[in-house]
């Protein structure tokens, strides 16, 4: 009897001294699973969450059935890892979504680059075609000027195409009166100006020839006006004529300088 009492007291004492252990992984697993469930991507990790829930349920059951047993510890360990896996699975779903979005962005931008390059190639092609057409028309204009039979010269200089003719071939000497026999040549020059690509025209007249009752600069000015009138009367638009410099460059006689408009400013169809 005494022995039984001693044994009971000893058992009670031992029980108080060493309460059943709870695996540290168990509360950690509960917290990890709760975190995984709260993840914005929890819906994408449904299977892993189900696994983790089942593992945690088993760990709780094992701990209740045999607190602190090796099996309870194993189950808590597994529950914690499975909960962690569920959380990572949610992150994986998030990364997959980000990857899909970035792939779509790459695909969209590649397509944009392809389309942009195609547009640029088409613009370059149109510009080139435009340039070739202008070159052909310019060449045709030079030929037409050459056929104008002015007795002058045609030169290319930085300002453009320069048709240099003798003032006496167009005007009566010492006057601003246009010679009748130059009408055909003026008509041919006007036709060449009308037919060529867009251009501006500057007329430069030698200003050191004495006129009848006119000083050389006044004569040069009047000849310039008469020549513009003669060309506009033959169909050349008045707005193509540009004012000339105050003093004509060295070597000028009666120069018609044709300057093409900048090709790069040409309008291109979109």
């Amino acid at each position, binding site marked *: 009897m005494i022995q039984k009492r001693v044994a009971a007291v000893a058992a009670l004492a031992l029980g108080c001294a060493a309460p059943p252990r709870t695996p540290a992984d168990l509360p950690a697993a509960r917290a990890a699973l709760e975190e995984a469930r709260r993840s914005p991507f929890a819906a994408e990790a449904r299977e892993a969450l189900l696994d983790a829930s089942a593992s945690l349920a088993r760990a709780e059951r094992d701990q209740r059935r045999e607190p602190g047993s090796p099996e309870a510890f194993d189950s808590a360990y597994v529950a914690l*890892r499975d909960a962690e896996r569920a959380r*990572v*699975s949610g992150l994986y779903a998030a990364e997959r979504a980000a990857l899909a979005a970035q792939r779509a962005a790459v695909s969209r*931008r590649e397509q944009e680059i392809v389309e942009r390059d195609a547009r640029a*190639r088409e613009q370059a092609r149109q510009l*080139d075609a435009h340039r070739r057409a202008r070159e052909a028309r310019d060449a045709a204009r030079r030929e037409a000027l050459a056929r104008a039979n002015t007795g002058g010269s045609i030169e290319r200089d930085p300002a453009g195409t320069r048709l240099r003719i003798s003032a006496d071939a167009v005007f009566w000497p010492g006057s601003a009166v246009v010679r009748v026999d130059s009408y055909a040549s003026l008509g041919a020059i006007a036709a060449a100006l009308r037919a060529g690509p867009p251009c501006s025209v500057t007329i430069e007249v030698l200003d050191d020839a004495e006129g009848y009752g006119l000083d050389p600069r006044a004569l040069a000015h009047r000849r310039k006006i008469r020549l513009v009138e003669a060309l506009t009367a033959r169909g050349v638009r008045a707005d193509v004529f540009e004012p000339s410099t105050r003093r004509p460059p060295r070597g000028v006689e009666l120069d018609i300088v044709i300057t093409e408009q900048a090709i790069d400013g040409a309008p291109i169809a979109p």
Partner: protein
Amino acid sequence: MKRRALILGCSAALGGCAAASLDGAIPAAETAIARAAAGEGQAGEDLAASVYLALARRELAEAYARLAIGDEGAARGLARRARADADLAAALAAEIGARDAAKRTSDHADALGSELAKPPRVEAPEGAR
């Protein structure tokens, strides 16, 4: 020495039979480890995934050792731990692989955005001045 090897061999053979009876814990761990090892390349040099995979391998080896001496309870527990660690390693590897791929793709998208901001490089047509 030969005697010890013989005992270990017999134990392993017995362990092989017992493995099937451990509620499939050992085959599950083996499968999980194989899957994690296959995905190890995705993680590159990620430490966490490698650590969990190494842990899983060690636990499985320990499970076999326990099985060899007839400690099925411990073997089962270790195999279950190995399975959980290997699955976590595989999940980490997949997540890191996806994150790296997303980062690379994002960088590529940024590079394309920069390319779009530049004027196009178009060769002049043949014969153009």
